[in-house]
Every structure is written in structure tokens, then in C-alpha cells.
């Protein structure tokens, strides 16, 4: 059996983390291929329903990352995102999602190395946690319910 390769999706803001990940590239710092980035204008734009959608579509882990507090290009978008995350985190348990599957972090445009670290550590964490299957269980259960 080949080793489990987690699918990880990263929601990042355009101004800090996307630029930080660009810097990782220009600095040629290597990291795992498992993480793929979706660009948002601001972490404040990230609708957390998209996180649930991602798990539904087969993601094993998620990274959300934006500007450090007080560095937001739009002044307060990251604060809104942080508040939303605090609320959302509390619901994860109820939803049957291990909170460790979501990595919430700040990466500035100057932190190319930090981005690589976050990617690698998240990949390792998710590798240890194994594939995310709870959703499939629920989906299977719902299907069965629907048939009856």
C-alpha cells in the first residue's frame, strides 16, 4: 500500500499570505506538493461554509492564512476572519470534524520560510490523522436513509 497523500486546500489572502507563498517560491524553499492555494482578496472574504464544502469535496485538511493582526490591507478583514474562526471552531466538534484538520495562521508577505513550515507541518499532522472519512460515513448514512 502506498503512503497516504493528504489533499489539503489553502485559503489565503492576496496581500500577505499569497505574496508570502510567492516569496517561498522566489527563495526556492521546497515544500510538500499536497497543499494547493485558492486566492481570496482578504481573509475577511472567506466564507467558512467553503471550508465545509472542501471537506465535502474530499479535502483531508485545510489551511486558512492571511495578514497578521493590524496588517490587513483592508484594515479589519483579518479581525473579522479571526472572530469567525473562533465561532466556527466551536462548531467543528459538533460537526464531527477534528479541529486539527484546520490550520489557522498568519503569514506575512515577508515570511516565505514560515509558509513552507506551515505547509510541511500541516501535511505531517494530516498524514498522522489519516484520511478524512467522517463526511463519507455521514453521506452513506444519508443515502441509506433516503433509500428507505
Amino acid at each position: 500500500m502506498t503512503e497516504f497523500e493528504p489533499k489539503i486546500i489553502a485559503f489565503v489572502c492576496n496581500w500577505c499570505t499569497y505574496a508570502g507563498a510567492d516569496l517561498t517560491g522566489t527563495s526556492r524553499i521546497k515544500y510538500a506538493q499536497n497543499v494547493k492555494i485558492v486566492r481570496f482578496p482578504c481573509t475577511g472574504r472567506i466564507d467558512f461554509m467553503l471550508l465545509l464544502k472542501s471537506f465535502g469535496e474530499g479535502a483531508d485538511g485545510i489551511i486558512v492564512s492571511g495578514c497578521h493582526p493590524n496588517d490587513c490591507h483592508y484594515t479589519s478583514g483579518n479581525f473579522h476572519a479571526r472572530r469567525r474562526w473562533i465561532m466556527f471552531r466551536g462548531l467543528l466538534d459538533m460537526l464531527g470534524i477534528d479541529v486539527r484538520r484546520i490550520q489557522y495562521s498568519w503569514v506575512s508577505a515577508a515570511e516565505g520560510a514560515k509558509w513552507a513550515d506551515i505547509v510541511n507541518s500541516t501535511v505531517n499532522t494530516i498524514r498522522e490523522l489519516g484520511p478524512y472519512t467522517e463526511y463519507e460515513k455521514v453521506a452513506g448514512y444519508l443515502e441509506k436513509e433516503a433509500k428507505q
Partner: protein
Amino acid sequence: MSKIGVFICHCGENINATVDCARVAKTAGELEGVEYSIDYKYMCSDPGQTLIKQAIKEKGLTGVVVGSCSPRMHEPTFRKACQEAGLNPFMCEMANLREHCSWVHDKNEATTQKAIDLVRTLVEKVKLNKPLYSIKVPVTKTALVIGGGIAGIQASLDIANAGHQVILVEKDPSIGGHMSQLSETFPTLDCSQCILTPRMVEVAQHPNIKLLTYAELEKLEGSIGNFKATIRKKAKSIDENLCNGCGTCTTKCPTKKIPSEFNTGLGTRTAIYVPFPQAVPNKPVIDKENCSYYQKGKCKVCEKVCPTGAIRFDQEDELVEIEVGAVVIATGFNIMQPSEFPEYGYGKYKDVITGLQFERLASASGPTLGEIRRPSDGKIPEKIVFVACAGSRDPAKGIPYCSKICCMYTAKHAMLYQHKVHHGKSYIFYMDIRAAGKNYEEFVRRAIVDDEVNYIRGRVSKIYEENGKLIVRGVDTLLNAKPVEIEADMVVLASAAIANPGAEELAQKMHVSYDSYHFFSEAHPKLKPVETNTAGIFLAGACQAPKDIPETVSQASGAASKAIILFSKDELSRDPLIAVVNRSPAPVFSTCVGCFMCASACPYQAIGEELITNRQGKVIKKVAKVNPGLCQGCGTCVAFCRSKSIDIQGYSNEQMCAEVVALLNND
């Protein structure tokens, strides 16, 4: 049906070395909706761009995905190329195959697979892209400058000299601000009024500047390029056209004992007054609070003596509406009243004064005509103590910040004192000497070395009177924290610079943000120091944070140039990546339910209300509406909206969802 073109760039060997570009292009070509795909060595080169342009024309492409470097690098290049080929530039997206893939991974199957995934994701996104057009906003080429201190004066002159109209509003009867109260200025010791008053006169005579003194902003509506301001012109009780500024009224007015604001209470003025001899405009106003006629109904001496009959007791406040395209806030600062420090005895002992009062004492136009005489008995003080950081850097007093100007002006005060009272002794209690600035440190050194000012590093704990002397108790931390006691004749407190009392209210009127000290907040602490969060409103001077004169003038010129840039075109053109509230046919009109969660989340006050009415004019529904002139496109409102009625162009809910689905379904 979409006809997408996919263009994969090798970037020389930068991408091709680890990603199999040919295979990425081939696989992308098999995706649904992809009409054409190709890989090329340098897509950003002229032949590369021509490749894209030709394909758009020949294949009739409806969307373009370029798989190359970061969009932060070449997005404008490729969007421009699309536009030149007749495709809407916002129908072009970029997949970041270099910074996010080839440069960070080794050459193997997974790297190529990731590149394919990234391209597929953007193909799915671009399918949902809609043609967008830059937003055009007409510009009114008139600036409103609020505050007539040195910041407002500088900003007004700069804008007016660029050929634009300026309306300068000042709340006091004269422009000039705090700078007109200063004696000499550091680090050159040149007379403040000598350098300021020519500027004041220039403002008054400039054909492009309309000066409204004794006036305040009442209301500000609208947005960048098109503000509508309401100004309250307070009743001056004189007819400015008739008054020739002869000054007879001010000499004859019987109410003479009113503490002069300009002389910080050290001198007096009459009820009808000109704040200071060089005032601009040099025409008096009647202070209704102190005028016998207004208070007791009797007097009218000024009316009797006025040779031109300019006194108007029945004059009322007037509201003027003006249309402006940009606003410069230059309302300045205030100083903390040290009566909040009972330990320093300010208010209790007449000879404990503030730095600003000392400026008036040292000023040639001041109440003592420039002689340093103590307020209590008019004697020349033999020993004088200056207390730096009176309030500043003291979290216990609510002012943890450094007021920035005090170190320098305290050194200047001590120097001026030594120049005027040669046998006198001066002491400065300080925490740190902060003299960062051109020739500043040298200036402080001069005070210490040439003028023999005694600097004592430590704070003052108590000031009390004993046998006609002010006993200043403090500590010298450089001498093993030894207590020090000085018998002084006068004490000067360098009290903290604070925001104006009306700053918070003004900020709310203009919808600009302010910090916890009520100083106005800049849009970005480093890169947008003169802009506010509200587009078209700029900051100049100490209303943003304590500043000295050179810094204030620089910032004022910066704010002015921002306004001039705004006025350089007849129309503003903005990126259309902004939020919009959906509209649908009757009877729904919009799925917006009018909860206005979006408005509370918006950092730019860009969301307002719109009333949807029927033909009879009856309101059917109240919904949110985004002001395209203000929205910056952060999308925070989108994530907040409970009914998914507000969406952001270019990053719509549909597009983001399509990206997520495409990215994760790669099996």
C-alpha cells in the same frame, strides 16, 4: 458555451525543469470547455503575447487561463494583451505554476499533477468570470481643507497653486493655528510668526482659495470626487464687506478683562476682538458669551464708534453647502491641561505654567513683549525648572505615547531663557532625550554645552510652594536615584499633545476612523500615511499624531499632492472588483433582506440603503446598496451576508465554490 484558451509558459526552464509543461497543456486541452491549449517558452514575451492575441481572434475565445508566474507579477500584462485582442481583460486568469509549484517542488509526477490541478481550477473559475468594466466617477475639482493651521495653510496653497479651487475652513476668527502662538522654532530659532504670517497673507490673497473663518463643518455626504459639505458660518456680528479692520471697536469695547485664548490666558482681550495683531482676516468678531449687549442687552459701544457701520447684532449663523471632490483634514492638536496633575500644582500656583504659555512669554508679541516674567508678580525668574513628559509616556494618565515635540521645545525654552536671563539657572527633568531629526541632536547638545542647561534624568514627584519659592522634588536616576530638590521661581510643564476635543465627533461626521486617543487613523501605517480609510479624505499634520512643523508641512504637501492627483483627471477610473447587491425582477427585486450586517462589517462605510418603490412611490423594500466609489473590494461583507445577496465581482461565491470543487476533484 465557454471557449477557453489555456496557455502554459515554460518560463525558460523555470517551470519546465520540474513541470512537464507539454503534458499540462495537453491535459488542459482535454478539459470540458477548453477550445485551445498550447505551451510556449516565454508567454510574457512579445511572440508569446501575440500567440494569445491570435488565438483569441482566430478561435473566438471567451476566456483565457495563463499558467505561468504569479498573478502578482504578470496579471496586468496578460489582461492588457487580452484587451488588445478584443477580449474583456477580466476574462483572463492566471494559474501560478512557478512560485507556487515549479520553484517549490522537485521534478516528479506529483509536481506535474499539481500544475494540472491548478490550471483546471482556474479554467473552472474563468468559466464563471463575467466581463467587467472600470468604474468611472466624475470629479469635482475643488478641495475642502478643514483647519487653518500650518498644515491647512500648506495644503491649501499647494492645491491652489496647482490650479484647483480650495475652500479653507477655520473654526477660530483667524487662521494661523498653534504655530502663530510660538515664539521661536527649533532647531534654527527663527521667529515663528516671521515665517508663518507671509503664508497666511498668501492664503488670504490667493485667487483660488476661499477662506471661511469662524466656521465649522456641519455635515459631509457623498464620496470620493463628489462630496457635499455643509459648513456652519458662525455669526461674527460684523459685516465683513464693510469692516475695514481699523480696530476702533476693539480699543473702545468696555469689556476688557476676558482671558485671551491666543495668549493662553496670560493676557486679556475685549469682547469684540481680533485674536492677535497679525490675524488673517484682520477683522474682529464679537464673542457673544462675554459681550455686554448679548448678555445684558445694553452697551452697543462698538456700533457707535464703528466708522463704517459694520456691526450687525442681528447676524445669525449661516449654513453654506459646497460641493468638493477631496477633503484634507488638518485640525491639529491640543495640549493636555496639566490640572490633571495635582502633584505639579498647575492652577494652584500661578508660576507653574505650560510650555505653550512659556511660548507666549518668550514671544515678542506676547503679554510681556518677550521678557521672561513670572505670571504671579512679574519678576524675572532666577531659577526655572522644566518638566518634560508631563503626561506623555504615562499610561496611568491615559497617554502611553510620546508627544514627540516636547524634548525639542523644552530644550528650546531653556535656551531662550538662558539667552534672555544670562545669570539665570535652568533645569530640565527628563525621561529620555528624543532628538531624532535633522540638526535636532546638535540643538540639544548646544543647550547642554553652550547654554549650560542642567539636564536631570528623572521624574518630578511633587511641586509645592514654600517661602515664595516653588520647591520641585524629583529624583536623579543617574546619581544612584538620589532625591533632588530645587527651589525654583517658575516651573514649565511640557504637557502632552492630545487630540482636539471635537476630534471624535468630526471623525464620525466624515466617517473616518480614529485611534483610541482620538487621533485620526491613516489608511496604512507605512504605505498610506496621508490617506484615510475613506477614499478622497486625506490627513495633514498633528490631527493624525503629534508632529513638529517640518513633518506637518511635509505631510500637508503629501495630502495636497494626493488631492491634486485626484483632480488630474476628469473622471476617476477604478478596478471593478467590488461588491454588488443582487437585483432580480419584480416581485422579488433583490434577495437582500435589509439586515445590514454587511454595512456593519464594511471598513469603508461603502454600504448604504436603497429604497425600492413601486410606481406610486410607495416603499416596497429596503435593501443594501454598495457605493462603487468607496468599496475597495475586500469582500468581508460577502462572507457576512446571511442571504447570499451581496457578492464580489471577480471573487464571487460561485467562482470560489467552483475553484474548491475543481481543486479537490482530481481523480
